[in-house]
């Protein structure tokens, strides 16, 4: 009930103040419209003079300078220090490498000794795409001879198994069903070694004596075929 009466009292107050509010609102709307037109003209001028539509206020500029000074104070930029040059080659122009070693620059040695840095490409190799010069590293690390890696042959047809091996397998796998053995034999027969078949181009005769002078293609058999 009290809230209702409060709202009632506010209602009377707002009715009395509403005309003033409307006047103030209309005034600000008109001021805003005039400011918009004024800013429009200014913006056109700023556009042709290359300035911003809203130039920085003096207070904002002062704030920005203050923040920049604080940032510079809190995060001083490190001075560049001269680093020892690892590469003994004289500078011949072009890009300079930053002498840093990453983990990828080290060879993994199975001996457990200290890894050696991988030889970096010289400037000439990168810039002028020349072949890298072979340089002997000052320290030769003992390298164990590794066995040749077993290369897995891909798409190479396996040799045809002999009948004796098949019989041995048959003797070892006596419990196998004879039909399975027959199927296996049939599959092995299907795995033949690829031999390129002769094409129609092979029928053209090529004189072996004239191989030095190029390929001689005769069309003697053209009408016969």
């Amino acid at each position: 009930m009290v809230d209702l009466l409060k709202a009632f009292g506010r209602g009377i107050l707002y009715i009395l103040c509403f005309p003033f509010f409307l006047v103030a609102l209309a005034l600000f709307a008109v001021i805003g419209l005039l400011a918009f037109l004024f800013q429009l003209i200014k913006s056109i001028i700023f556009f042709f003079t290359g300035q911003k539509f809203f130039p920085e206020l003096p207070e904002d500029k002062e704030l920005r300078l203050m923040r920049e000074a604080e940032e510079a104070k809190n995060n001083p930029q490190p001075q560049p220090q001269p680093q020892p040059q690892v590469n003994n080659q004289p500078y011949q122009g072009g890009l300079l490498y930053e002498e840093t070693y990453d983990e990828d620059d080290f060879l993994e040695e199975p001996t457990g000794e200290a890894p050696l840095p991988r030889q970096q490409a010289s400037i000439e190799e990168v810039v002028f795409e020349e072949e890298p010069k072979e340089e002997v590293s000052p320290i030769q690390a003992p390298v164990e001879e590794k066995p040749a890696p077993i290369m897995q042959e891909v798409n190479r047809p396996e040799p045809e198994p002999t009948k004796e091996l098949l019989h041995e397998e048959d003797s070892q796998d006596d419990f196998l069903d004879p039909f399975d053995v027959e199927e296996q034999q049939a599959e092995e027969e299907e795995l033949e070694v690829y031999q390129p078949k002769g094409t129609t181009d092979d029928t053209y005769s090529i004189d072996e004596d004239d191989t030095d002078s190029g390929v001689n293609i005769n069309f003697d058999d053209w009408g016969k075929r």
Partner: protein
Amino acid sequence: MNPNVLIKLTENDKRVIIALLFAIILLFVIIGLLGSLIVRTMKWQGKKCDTLVSDVVTNHIVKTPHQLRKYAAKKNIRHFLKQAWIPIIIILVGVATICIRNAITKDWSYDLLNYNNGTPNQGGTGIGTLLFIWDFKDPDSYTKIWGLTLLAKWPPLINEPHFSVDAIWCYVYILCMVVGGTWYVIAAQAYLARTIRAIKLSKKVFEKSLDNFDQNTPPQQPQQPQQPNNPTQLM
């Protein structure tokens, strides 16, 4: 008391008066609630002023209420322009629509409230085609009571809402004006709210209070930085 001044109220009159009283109270309550809603909205809109001026105030770049009001006025008008350019363009589009229509038809005496082409509920070139229109000029709808002309009955309906292709220019114009105008008024209200907030802030931020100050209590000594024990640290 003069008996001629006394008014004799019947029971029915009393009921009517009580009903009217309740209706007026309800009306004021509704107006009060709407006013409270507007005030809350304006307070919420005025909070944007704090965001606009807080950096400058907290870094002690503005040091007087006058500087704060001046700076806040600049920031407020800029923020208003950023908010108001879209509704202004919408309004301009609406005005351009009507101007183009008038230029095409060469009819600059265009009636925006036209509601028919002479035949009831047909045609029309204005927004009146979408409105209910009653004929308040009908003399038969009025009566005279104690010398006063009062509305005796609901006037006859002369137009029902209907769509007219000829009025499509007016539809676009009215739509742009309503949307853009409402948007612009809200932006202007926010501008007013920020200005009021800036005036309040300029008084409040620089206010110095002696409520908790006691002259008899000794002032606290500022803490000195601790000296390092090892003198080599000074090197």
